[in-house]
């Protein structure tokens, strides 16, 4: 087959289709399709959302959530063998003894460390451990912004209503209350540490619309919001000299039968394990995007493999909303090299329109994410009005030139530099041409059940950030994930500091919970060679794996 001829990053046939987009742009500039009614939303969700489609899920058959549905990819890991053998592993001599162990150094974990320190836990009594580098996380990749109701016409009440409406009224109400009340405090905290948010000329925050929102509430740092927030917090963390380890994933917890009392670390380079003893533990390991639920590509970090959920479940932590998965409507669908990567919702917040193959605006651009994603899938696979890529993917256009048209020339480069840069690297100028999008696996809506302070049903175990469930119900809104990490990172840090003031003692270090877990697997008749946590996805070439031998 002859190589495709590319013009401005697109093959010739796609370039012809772009003409349809160019032709209709001037008529669409002042037109927006009507938002869907609740009934219309429900119809498209039932028809096209991956969570509602048959298959892809099964019941969990062991542990506290027995009978609950979860994606097959998650159940596979919940019902898997541990990486270590509880009968033979030596765990009695801890290599580290700390008051507070924090696992995961994204926005949640880093915030937790700072607030624990602010509330009296001495730096040397904290240890933050990271699977990769401190900061490697989905937080770092958050583009669009952080919600906080801080304008005159807005209020925490409206933030509350938007959040639970977007979450299908399944959110845990007291946790949402904490989220919306603390949001302005988080903005104050970040600003006082030196984070730079987009400002209007009068010094007020630039605030933009977002899917499912009733007010302009989105605070951004260009389209590098998570990067800016996290690098400031990480710098502050470093300046205080809080101890941390990198390239040391946690592969198992230790317990005294009831409480979590420590953890087993694994040195990725040498293969050696280390034992940590701790009085309180905050688990902030993020979500599960790299499990590629239902075969979807993902926006997520390389390390987003649900490690924390698996370990927490083994010690008896309760999960919730395990059956819901967030697919972000605008994942890149072309070119091949960036399939699945995130195109921030800010593109639509600034006026970018989703279009079908005829250049028609077919959906209100700012529906909640699950509804918007379903509408894209319907357009591509039921109405057959998608654009097919050279590798057989289908997608819809996102009309990005409209952003400069609506906001003035230069808006894309100034406010969306990450997006502009990514496409430029692959020869596409998004100021002049639309980009092709299709839903991509984005977020773990559910997770470990928690109270407004990040506490779980296990004494001495807290969770914060994407690993937790409840605050987003069955669908998260934009700008509530960085906020979730910041609010509950801070709260768990404060809460653990208070717990430590009650002077708890180090507990016994055992792997009894693994013995119980293995028995549960056996009793449920689950015979498997699967092992978890997996730590990383497997992307190596098949031909190489087929010939691979393990010598050392």
């Amino acid at each position, binding site marked *: 087959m002859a190589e495709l001829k590319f013009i401005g990053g697109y093959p010739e046939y796609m370039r012809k289709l772009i003409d349809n987009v160019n032709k209709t742009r001037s008529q669409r500039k002042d037109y927006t399709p009507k938002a869907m009614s609740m009934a219309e939303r429900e119809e498209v969700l039932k028809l096209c959302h991956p969570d509602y489609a048959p298959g892809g899920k099964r019941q969990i058959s062991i542990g506290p959530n027995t009978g609950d549905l979860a994606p097959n990819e998650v159940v596979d890991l919940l019902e898997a063998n541990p990486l270590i053998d509880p009968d033979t592993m030596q765990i009695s001599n801890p290599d580290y003894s700390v008051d507070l162990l924090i696992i995961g150094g994204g926005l949640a974990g880093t915030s937790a460390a700072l607030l624990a320190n602010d509330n009296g836990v001495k730096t040397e009594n904290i240890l933050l451990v990271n699977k990769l580098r401190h900061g490697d996380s989905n937080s770092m990749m958050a583009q669009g912004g952080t919600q906080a109701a801080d304008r005159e016409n807005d209020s925490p009440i409206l933030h509350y209503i938007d959040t639970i409406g977007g979450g299908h009224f399944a959110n845990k109400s007291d946790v949402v209350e904490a989220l919306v009340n603390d949001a302005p405090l988080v903005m*104050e905290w970040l600003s006082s540490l030196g984070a730079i948010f987009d400002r209007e000329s009068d010094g007020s925050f630039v605030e933009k619309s977002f899917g499912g929102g009733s007010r302009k509430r989105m605070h951004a740092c260009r389209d590098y919001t998570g990067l800016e927030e996290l690098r400031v917090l990480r710098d502050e963390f470093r300046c205080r000299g809080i101890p941390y380890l990198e390239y040391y994933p946690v592969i198992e917890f230790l317990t005294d039968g009831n409480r979590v009392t420590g953890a087993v670390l694994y040195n990725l380079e040498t293969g050696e394990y280390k034992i940590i003893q701790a009085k309180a533990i905050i688990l902030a390991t993020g979500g599960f995007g790299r499990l590629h639920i239902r075969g979807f590509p993902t926006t997520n970090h390389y390390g987003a493999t649900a490690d924390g959920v698996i370990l927490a479940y083994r010690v008896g932590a309760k999960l919730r909303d395990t059956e819901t998965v967030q697919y972000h409507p605008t994942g890149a669908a072309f070119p091949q090299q*960036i399939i699945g990567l995130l195109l921030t919702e800010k593109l639509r917040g600034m006026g970018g329109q989703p279009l079908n193959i005829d250049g028609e605006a077919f959906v209100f651009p700012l529906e909640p994410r699950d509804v918007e994603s379903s509408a894209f899938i319907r357009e591509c696979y039921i109405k057959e009005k998608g654009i097919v890529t050279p590798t057989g993917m289908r997608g819809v256009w996102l009309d990005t030139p409209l952003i400069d048209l609506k906001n003035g020339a230069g808006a894309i480069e100034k406010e969306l530099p990450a997006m502009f840069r990514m496409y430029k690297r692959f020869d596409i100028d998004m100021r002049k041409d639309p980009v092709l999008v299709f839903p991509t696996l984005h977020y773990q809506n559910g997770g470990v059940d928690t109270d407004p302070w990040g506490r779980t049903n296990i004494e001495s175990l807290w969770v914060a950030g994407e690993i937790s469930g409840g605050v987003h119900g069955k669908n998260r809104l934009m700008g509530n994930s960085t906020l979730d990490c910041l609010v509950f990172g801070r709260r768990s840090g404060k809460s653990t500091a208070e717990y430590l003031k009650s002077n708890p003692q180090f507990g016994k270090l055992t792997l009894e919970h693994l013995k119980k877990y293995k028995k549960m697997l056996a009793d449920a008749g689950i015979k498997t060679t699967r092992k978890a946590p997996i730590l990383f996805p497997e992307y190596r070439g098949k031909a190489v794996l087929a010939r691979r031998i393990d010598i050392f």
Partner: protein
Amino acid sequence: MAEEKKNIMDEIAGANKSVVTGIDEKDIQHWIYISIMGKKYRVPAGLTIMQAMEFAGYRFIRSCGCRAGFCGACTTVYRIEGDYRLKTALACQTRAEDRMYLVQIPFTPAQRSDYDINKLTPGIEAFLKVYPEILKCLGCNSCTKACPQDIDVMEYIACGKRGDMEKMAGISFDCIQCGLCAIRCPAELAQYNYAQLGRRLYGKYGEPLPEHLKKRLEELKQGKFESELKRLITLQKEELRKIYTSRDIEKE
């Protein structure tokens, strides 16, 4: 109907297969040759450097992070056969090319200093205290050439030396802290760490808290929204749904 829905999900998974589980050799139309740390491999054309290395059999435990150009983990130094120049790139955001000789940088041992942001004054004084070596910049522009984000690194260092925090913050804002500037710098600077200090100084001292935020913080302190939130929490789903569907939406 149910059958049809199942097929959609299967179709989508089928279309994504090469991205999620790797390309099947039989589907590969064009091959290229690359050299990874001196070893030659045949890989499909059109992959990123990162994907090409994985196809060749590498499993990353370093030099791989967000895979989307935001984290700076996958800094790569390469040369194309026949060219004398060493180039720099992010492995996740750069196509592998035929006859590319590459190595990844697993870690940047650059110096950074600790400071108390509350005790510094924005401007050159802060740099003289925390990073006095910033004055050693030779003005050779190697940093700018090495930057995979195309940031004018040399210019923001000049701004730092002039004490212009606002410009230093603005120019350096898209920095992903990969460390390539520091690795290429003949004056042995750690530019990206200086930029971090400059941005924090500007963010803290150059941009005061907006009045609307201060007002909201005061209202929260006084408990202005407490009783209404408490009332909402007690409502049943149907009542909440009514409030949700009838709420007014702010226009553009």
